């Protein structure tokens, strides 16, 4: 299973923003390998959530762990059959462990997006 997590500059803690996160942690549970990829949407003018979702889809992820997620990105994950889990705390490694132990809940509420308003 491939798991994606938006992470901060330090690449260890989870970024509260999905679309604007500077990096994505991509973890493959089969090979136990972890990769860090730059998020090309971090500085996109608009549609950042959609562009970041494309990265997650293209990495072949089966699951995403995030603090929150916009409606557009959620629609992408639904179409791509990628499950979205609600992160707890801020440590990415602990969240991977928690997911493996079945302790994370699915994220079911999505925000409408900020679109320059906030």
């Amino acid at each position, binding site marked *: 299973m491939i798991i994606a997590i938006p992470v901060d500059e330090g690449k260890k803690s989870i970024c509260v923003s999905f679309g604007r996160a500077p990096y994505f942690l991509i973890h493959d549970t089969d090979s136990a390998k972890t990769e860090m990829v730059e998020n090309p949407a971090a500085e996109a003018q608009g549609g950042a959530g959609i562009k970041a*979702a494309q990265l997650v889809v293209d990495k072949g992820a089966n699951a995403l762990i995030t603090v929150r997620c916009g409606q557009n990105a959620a*629609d*992408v994950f639904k179409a791509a059959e990628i499950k979205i889990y609600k992160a707890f705390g801020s440590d990415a490694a602990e969240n991977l462990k928690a997911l493996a132990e079945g302790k994370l809940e699915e994220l079911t509420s999505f925000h409408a997006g900020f679109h320059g308003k906030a």
Partner: protein
Amino acid sequence: MRVAVLSGKGGAGKTFVSVNLAATAKSAVYIDCDVEEPNGRLYWKPNIESETPVSVLIPEFDAAKCSGCRKCVEFCRFHALIFVKGNPMLFPSVCHSCGGCSLVCPENAVMEVPRPVGTIEKGARDGVHVVTGILNTGEESAVPTIKAALCAGGDDDFTVIDCPPGSSCGVMESVKDADCCLLVAEPTAFGFHNFKMVHRLSVLLKKPCGVVINKADAPYKPLEDYCAAQGLPVLLRVPYSERLAELGAAGEIAVEHDSEIAKAFGGLLSAIREGALS
């Protein structure tokens, strides 16, 4: 002559000034470009002559022709397209209708189809043609509906454009083809802040400007100083009055009921026609 009425801050009195100015002109076109909340028609109560839908073009993909090359997805700078499970997927509200996806598709698999975003309502009250742009609830971009409203207004000799609040794309679109800008200022810190923003925008667009100070109980010094320093003519001061508030709340056009305000707007109209804006 096309006069754009703008204020930045909402509630400063754009619609009050626009409606009363057009009513004073008697033969005029009033265009409501505040398409998210078009309320000029509450005063005009026009006889509705037509209602025309406004649409934008969005892509539709022919799955039989699509080879999955992703050229359309990579081309879309607005990120309205995504590639999932071998197919492009569209986010209609993010699409800017540029048509680029259909141009870059090597398989001719992209068709452009209309998506309704609003309505243009045309009507009349005595000699005033009332054009109202109405944006569908939930739509993110007001610009296509504003463009359609301005186009429906035609080129009559005197046109008043009631602009949306703020100073973003929708306001720029509303002001773009106007001959001059009438800036409605509210003598408060908030009103003055936004007034300066719309003034800077009008200067950037090279429009002559004039000022109406609404709810002007007492002179607000920063506003007065700014107008003097910028050489902005203050063409009208409307004091706050309970009578005007009552008429507004009743959906009445003030110049039709109050001779004093009618005279004041008569002076404003003459000043605009004589080119007092600078």
